[in-house]
C-alpha cells in the first residue's frame, strides 16, 4: 500500500520539478516505484495519472518539438498545482476555515477535512475571534449530496428515481447545474433530459442512490445559470384575505400585509397574503384551526368550510 503512496508522491515531485516535458520512458527509468513488465508499468502510470487528476492535480501532456511527432512528455505546471485563491489574509483564512468546518459531521466531511488541511498549510494563523462568535453548520447526512456535487463539478449526467406525490418512482436523467439548500432541505437544479426543461428536485425525495451516467464533461453549465430563479416568486400568485386571531398565525403574519381599518372584529386582525400552491395553502389555513378564518375569496372560504364539514361527518 505504501509503495503506491510513495510512487504517487514521487511522480508528483518529478513532474512538478521539471521545466520541460519528461517522457514516459524517462519516468519509468527514473521515478521510483515503476517496476515489472512494460505493460504493467503502462497500466500503473495510467492509473496514477487518473488518481492525481481526481486529487485535482492536472498533468499536462505535450511534445518537445511541435513540428515533429516526438514521444509525448508530461509535466505539472506549478500554477496548476498550487492553491488558486491567491493571497489570503488571516481574516480570509478564518472565513474559509469556518466554511469548511461547517461540514463537521455532515456527508461531505472528508472533503471538508482535506480542504481544511490545505488552508492550514498556508501557514497564516487565522483570526480566532471570528471562529468563536460564529458556528455555521451544514446539516446533511444524505450521501446523494456528494454525488450531486461530483456530477456538477465533473459535468456528468445523473440518473435517479424520483418519488411523485403518489409515491410512484419516476426515472429521471439530469444535467445537474447547481445544488442549493433552502427551508432545511437540499435541492438539485438542472436540465431534465426527459422533460427537456429546467427542473428542481428535492434530494430526500429521491428513491435510492443518485448514479453518474456516461462520460464526464458531457455537457456545459450555462454561464447565466441562476438556481435562485427556480425559487423566485412566480408571477400570477393567488391572493387571499384572512382574519387572524390576536398573536396567532405567526407564520402567516410574517408573510402577509395587515389591512388596517379593515373589517376584523375585536381581538382579530385582517391580513392579505399571496400564495402559490392552492392545495398546500388550504392545508396551511386548516392547520391553524379556529385561529385563522378565510374572508376572501369566497371560493376558498367555501372550500375550507366544506373540508371542515366533511371532518365533522368523518370523525363526529
Amino acid at each position, binding site marked *: 500500500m505504501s509503495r503506491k503512496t510513495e510512487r504517487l508522491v514521487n511522480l508528483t515531485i518529478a513532474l512538478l520539478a521539471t521545466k520541460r516535458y519528461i517522457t514516459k520512458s524517462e519516468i519509468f527509468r527514473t521515478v521510483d516505484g515503476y517496476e515489472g513488465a512494460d505493460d504493467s508499468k503502462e497500466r500503473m502510470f495510467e492509473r496514477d495519472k487518473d488518481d492525481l487528476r481526481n486529487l485535482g492535480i492536472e498533468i499536462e501532456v505535450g511534445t518537445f518539438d511541435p513540428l515533429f511527432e516526438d514521444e509525448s512528455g508530461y509535466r505539472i505546471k506549478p500554477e496548476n498545482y498550487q492553491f488558486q485563491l491567491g493571497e489570503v489574509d488571516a481574516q480570509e483564512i478564518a472565513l474559509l476555515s469556518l466554511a469548511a468546518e461547517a461540514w463537521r459531521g455532515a456527508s461531505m466531511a472528508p472533503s471538508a477535512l482535506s480542504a481544511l488541511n490545505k488552508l492550514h498549510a498556508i501557514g497564516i494563523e487565522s483570526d480566532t475571534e471570528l471562529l468563536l462568535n460564529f458556528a455555521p453548520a451544514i446539516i446533511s447526512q444524505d450521501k446523494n449530496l456528494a454525488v450531486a456535487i461530483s456530477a456538477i463539478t465533473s459535468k456528468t449526467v445523473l440518473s435517479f428515481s424520483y418519488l411523485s406525490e403518489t409515491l410512484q418512482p419516476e426515472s429521471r436523467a439530469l444535467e445537474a447545474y447547481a445544488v442549493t439548500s433552502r427551508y432545511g432541505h437540499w435541492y438539485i437544479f438542472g436540465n431534465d433530459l426527459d422533460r427537456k426543461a429546467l427542473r428542481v428536485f428535492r434530494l430526500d425525495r429521491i428513491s435510492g442512490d443518485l448514479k453518474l451516467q456516461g462520460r464526464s464533461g458531457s455537457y456545459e*453549465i450555462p454561464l447565466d445559470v441562476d438556481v435562485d430563479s427556480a425559487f423566485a416568486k412566480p408571477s400570477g400568485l393567488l391572493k387571499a384575505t384572512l382574519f387572524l386571531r390576536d398573536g396567532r398565525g405567526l407564520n402567516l403574519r410574517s408573510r402577509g400585509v395587515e389591512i388596517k381599518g379593515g373589517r376584523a372584529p375585536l381581538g382579530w386582525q385582517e391580513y392579505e397574503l399571496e400564495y402559490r400552491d392552492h392545495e398546500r395553502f388550504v392545508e396551511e389555513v386548516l392547520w391553524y384551526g379556529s385561529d385563522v378564518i378565510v374572508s376572501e375569496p369566497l371560493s376558498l372560504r367555501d372550500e375550507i368550510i366544506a373540508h371542515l364539514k366533511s371532518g365533522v361527518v368523518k370523525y*363526529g
Partner: protein
Amino acid sequence: MAKPQSTPVEKAARLLDLVPFISTHQGIALTDLAREFSLTESELLSDLNTLWMCGLPGYTPLELIDLDFESGYVSIRNAEVLQRVRLLTKQELVIILLGLDILANSLDAERSDLLEAISQLISRIKNIVGNVATAMPIVDSSHRAAIGQAIKSRKDLLINYHSTIRDTVTERTITPLEISLDHGFEVLHAYCQSAAGFRTFRLDNMKSVTISTLSVATPKMADLPGFESGFESGFEWDLLISSRFRTSSERFRATYQARESAKAERITVSSFSQDWLLRNAVSTLTSVEVLTPVSARALIAEKCRQSLELYETWAFSK
C-alpha cells in the same frame, strides 16, 4: 471529523499537504501535527516514514526529503518542490462556497466588513467553479455559537422561542444540555426553567439567543430525574392515507418509499405533542383519516366544529 481508513491515494494527498504545513510550522510537536490532520500519532508516524522515502529522481540523500521527528518535534528540509500548498479541488471549492453562503446569510447587516470579505471570496470561487451552489441557512450561526459557548461554560440561556405547535412566541430561561438532530433539523435538549421541565427546542425557531450572566451548576443529563422520559413521552396514532401520499407523509414526518399501487395505506406516526398531531390531522382532512386512538377522532371533530362555528357567527359570516 470522522475519518475512514485512508486509501493509498488519500494518504498520498495527505503527504502532499503535510509538506507545506510542516514547512510553515517547523518544529511542531508530533501530537499537535497529528491533531491538525485528525490523525492518531501512529498514523502520523506512518505518514512521515513514507514521506521520508520520497524525493526527486535519484533518491540519494541529496534528493530525498529530509525529515526529523525522532525528538517528538517535526522539521523538514529539502522539500522545496512540494512547498506550495495544493490547489483546492472543485469539490472542495463547492463545499466551501456553500459554507461561505451559509455564513453570509446568517450575519447581521451591521457586519458589513465580514460580508464584504465573504462576498469577495465567493466571487473568487465562483470565477473558478461557476454559480453552482447556494445555501440559505435556517439557523442563525451566532445562535448556534452562543448555545455552544453556554454549554461549555455552564451558563443559562435566555431565548425568544417561536413554538410552531402552539403558534406562540415566548421568552424562556433554559439550561442547555445538548444539540442533536431530529428529522434533519437541529434541536437543543434543555431544561426549561420557565416551564420547570425538560424541553426540546428547534434551533431554527429561536428568534434570539442570549447567554445569561449567571452560571449554573449544569446537572449531568443521566442524573436528571426523568431525563430519559422527559423529552419523548409520545402519542402514537394510526392513519389511513388515501391521497397526497408524499405531502401527507412529510407533514406527519413519516418516512416513505416508492409504492407500486395507488391504494390507501395504513401507517403509524408518533409525536411528543398531541396538539401537533391534531393540527396535522385537521390540515389533511381530505387525504388522511385518523383510525386510532378513538379519543383523537373526537378531538378532531371538536376542532372542526369550533372553526365552523366561527364561520357561522355574524362577525365572520358573509
